[in-house]
């Protein structure tokens, strides 16, 4: 992810780069079916956050997660991102292990910052997913 000192100069503090690497990782390690699943979930989740709130959406993703499926992957990526130093206003403390557990323990203001942060990250993820995962025609 580059050195901490340089990160401020990258596009949105390296958020874009982080998202690109996440999508690249999926492309390398998944079969076509999983790629397509990942793509459709990533496109739907931002909308879910806007309509239902971050807490509800994360709970839904966690409920749908099975080891190694695309929801599980997205949940892990969101967790990694919130722990990275690419976030702008708030990041997940190292002693926290579960994203949703940390999110629901935050106060209103932090909760809103996390929401913004996750939506901004998903915005990039969504673009890259559309560009990098092509129709299998």
């Amino acid at each position, binding site marked *: 992810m580059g050195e901490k000192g340089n990160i401020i100069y990258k596009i949105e503090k390296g958020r874009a780069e982080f998202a690109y690497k996440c999508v690249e990782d999926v492309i390398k390690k998944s079969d076509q079916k999983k790629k397509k699943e990942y793509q459709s979930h990533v496109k739907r989740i*931002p*909308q879910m956050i*806007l*309509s239902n709130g971050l807490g509800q959406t994360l709970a839904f993703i966690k409920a749908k997660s099975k080891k190694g499926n695309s929801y599980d992957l997205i949940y892990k990526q969101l967790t990694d991102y919130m722990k990275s130093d690419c976030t702008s206003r708030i990041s997940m403390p190292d002693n926290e292990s579960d994203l949703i557990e940390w999110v629901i323990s935050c106060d209103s203001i932090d909760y809103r910052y996390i*929401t913004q942060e996750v*939506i901004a990250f998903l*915005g990039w993820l*969504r673009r890259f997913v559309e560009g990098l995962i092509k129709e299998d025609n």
Partner: protein
Amino acid sequence: MYRKFSPLILIAESPIHAGSGSELGIVDLPIQREKYTNFPKIEGSGLKGCIREAFRFSKKEANVESSLENMSNDDLISLVFGPEEGDAHAGSIAFTDAKILLFPVKSLKGVFGWITCPMVLNRFVEDMKFADKVDSIKEWNLEKIRYTVPEDSDLVIFGDRIVLEEFTFKIEKSNKTSKVASILSNIVFNEDTAYEYWKDKLRKNLVVLSDDDFQQFVTHSTEVITRTKIDSETGTVQSGALWTEEYLPQDSILYSIVMTTPVRVKEEKKGPFKGENPDEEAEKVMNFFKLKVPEVIHLGGNQTIGKGIVRIKLLED
């Protein structure tokens, strides 16, 4: 040089989609926003176009006496709004971008409240000073007004909390805010028994948050709907025909300022807008506008699916 000013209150009677085209955000078709605050707005050009169209079909009589023979409604509109074709002369009426004043947000108690913030209220005061109208707001005291509600607010739970969407705020009841809310309710709603309910609701259910909170809500609490196109053959969604659209919710309240100059044509062509001096001529254009403007206009996109119905109120005093 604009000489006459009149503020215009816009009440969304159905959701409004004043679109900004497409953007690289979460929503495919977002609404127009101010670049540096992210507050929703409606471009002056869109407002002017929609009002011009409303004038063409307006049933209201403007009672203008024309010294010129056969001046049709379209000719008058052309003088006031500028010609439809070509660039012979500019219009003599102008509209500022509509700015947000009050934004409705879901509340745990009382269904919904109208939120605003110090930045918006201070802007409104400045704009009314610029238009030299609505003297009553000079009585407002906007110091330390963040996180307050009127004294008889319906939204408060546990004595000092309100819950908007999924966020809890600690707030104070304040008689300063009561005053702001009661003046706002008189500004926004007509003197008509039909509006008594809404007036009362605004008097009680105004919430002044901080600028940051307000920005959050107007960014993330607009209405976003998903639309699809169904293939009539298969009865399922056509491939690629699924998109999201953003709307300013119903009951959002915005305001704009109407400004007029003398009509910008030669003396002999001024017709009913001719006067002794420029002030009087600008006044005549303003009167024409006030007499002819319909109470309800259509604004923004998706009118065929019931969007963009806006009630207009002119502020006189």
